């Protein structure tokens, strides 16, 4: 019993022989299609009636079939339309979008943390220090306390981004914190104008409300590491400290509360000496010493 496939195979053979025989014979039917008309038919510019006449002739005339076959073979294969992803302008979409996101994040996130969350974090870290040992240093340089300035800034940025992410979005930000955010770029970009900015920002934390307990817990859960260099003044209630080698803070109640003290340069701070509740000497990484005698409102370079 033959299957349909067997019959189809036989039919293929028959069709090939029959149609080929027509091609090998005279095979010219009526008036042949000239090359110009064939080109127009191939470019689909003929009218519907004209195209139908050509097709009707092509179905019977072996010579014109051969002409068309040769024409088709001489046609360069069409270039496949590039997929959406392959189009050059879309191919760059992802990298461009990623770069734009990074830039937007860079400008949107302030270079200095809001005061309240930072203070909460510091308080949290201070409270956490006696109960648990500090985490091991990530790198030997950190272990030696020789973290480079760039690494320190990157660490600060990560910490800052985490702080912002964890802050409740619906909660309105304290006005003092906003003022604080604006200060650091002024310090970096325009040293001459820094004094005014510093004075404005220095007063801000005093009026800032205390950080909510929820924030404090989140920061504590994250286990962020703070590098704190603290100095005691002769008066035991007066303390000065450097946080993360970039930030100066002052306390007049034995470290219960800390207030931000603006520093005129964005530089690496490595040591601090507390002289009194109003005076302190800060040493920068490049060896210079800055002194203040008015609670950090103004600083003078000693050497």
């Amino acid at each position: 019993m033959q299957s349909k496939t067997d019959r189809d195979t036989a039919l293929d053979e028959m069709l090939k022989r029959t149609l080929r025989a027509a091609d090998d014979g005279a095979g010219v039917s009526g008036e042949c299609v000239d090359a110009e008309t064939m080109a127009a038919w191939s470019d689909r510019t003929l009218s519907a009636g004209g195209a139908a006449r050509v097709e009707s002739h092509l179905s019977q005339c072996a010579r014109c079939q051969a002409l068309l076959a040769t024409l088709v073979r001489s046609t360069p294969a069409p270039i496949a339309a590039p997929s959406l992803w392959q189009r050059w302008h879309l191919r760059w979409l992802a990298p461009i979008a990623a770069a734009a996101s990074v830039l937007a994040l860079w400008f949107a996130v302030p270079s200095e943390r809001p005061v309240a969350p930072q203070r909460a974090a510091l308080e949290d870290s201070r409270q956490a220090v006696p109960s648990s040992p500090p985490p091991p240093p990530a790198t030997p340089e950190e272990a030696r306390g020789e973290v480079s300035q760039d690494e320190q800034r990157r660490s600060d940025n990560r910490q800052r981004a985490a702080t912002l992410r964890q802050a409740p979005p619906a909660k309105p930000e304290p006005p003092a914190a906003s003022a604080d955010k604006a200060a650091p770029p002024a310090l970096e970009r325009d040293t001459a104008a820094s004094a005014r900015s510093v004075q404005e920002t220095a007063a801000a934390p005093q009026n800032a409300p205390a950080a909510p307990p929820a924030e404090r817990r989140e920061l504590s859960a994250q286990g962020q590491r703070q590098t704190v260099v603290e100095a005691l003044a002769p008066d035991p209630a007066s303390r000065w400290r450097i946080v993360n080698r970039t930030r100066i803070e002052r306390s007049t109640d034995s470290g219960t509360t800390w207030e931000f003290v603006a520093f005129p340069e964005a530089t690496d701070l490595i040591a601090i000496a507390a002289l009194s509740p109003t005076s302190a000497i800060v040493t920068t990484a490049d060896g210079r010493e800055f002194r203040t005698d008015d609670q950090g409102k103004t600083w003078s370079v000693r050497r």
Partner: protein
Amino acid sequence: MGALRLEPTIIQRLHEKAAAGRWGVSVERFASALEASVARAFSGLTPDRRQIERYLDSLHLGDLALACACADGHEGAWEHFVREHRPVLYRAADAIDPGGGARDLADSLYGELFGLKERDGARLSLFRYFHGRSSLGTWLRAMLSQRYVDRLRQARRLDALPADEAPAAVPAPMKTIDPDRRRFVAAIHHAIAAALAQLVPRDRFRLACYYAQSLTLAEIGRALGEHEATASRHLARTRRSIREAVERHLKHEERMTDAEIAECFSSVMDDAGPLDLVELLGSESARKNSERDRSSYVADPPPREGTADRRGPRRREHGAE
């Protein structure tokens, strides 16, 4: 259709659209080319103004202006043609015959385009046959294809018969042929011819492209302006309808039983029949072998270089049948 005069405003607009001034083609010269094109397209018809305008707007005007300028011997136009279109011509020649057999045709065509022939002291360029109905590139390839096919067909007619002592000239020993088998083959030939005659031109043309001209499905699709999967489906459907028509013909016209019909199909596989002229041409044997693979590709496609992407859908399609 009498001598057609196009409106000057239309001619001026098309002249500007074609940027014919770039090649120094005057408005009058371009108007004569446009009128010749309209006369050719509407030969024997009387088109109205809208039809003519629509037709004129569909022309490849830039190419038509270039052809006019080249026919007139404009140097800049020729430089442009040589730079842009001559490589197309040679690439087409190489595609038609990778062995370089069509290169001389391309050279000869190029010479005729330049107008090596003269009549009454004036050059006769082949460009006068270009009417802008297709792109210049397609027209050049069509001209080349026409010459190639005509040469091939002429050479086939002039092929010398083999010498009497040549092996091909020696007739094969007569096989004992079952008279019933001869009847079966004749019947199925007749049935197939009747089925082919019932096909619409496009289906018949598609079959001819596939079986006689050995075009691939992609090439057939390109020729007919359809996707190769569509061409494949049409071919399968046409073949199925032919098979059913043949079976019907054998059953009702030839009064054959199912067993005899099956024997008919078997006979085809065993006996080529009187129409197998290809097999008699020794030079075609290699081509025939490749086409046998190609033919079975429709029924159950074997692996073939460069067609892996096409075989998948066909195989599924036959499975569905």
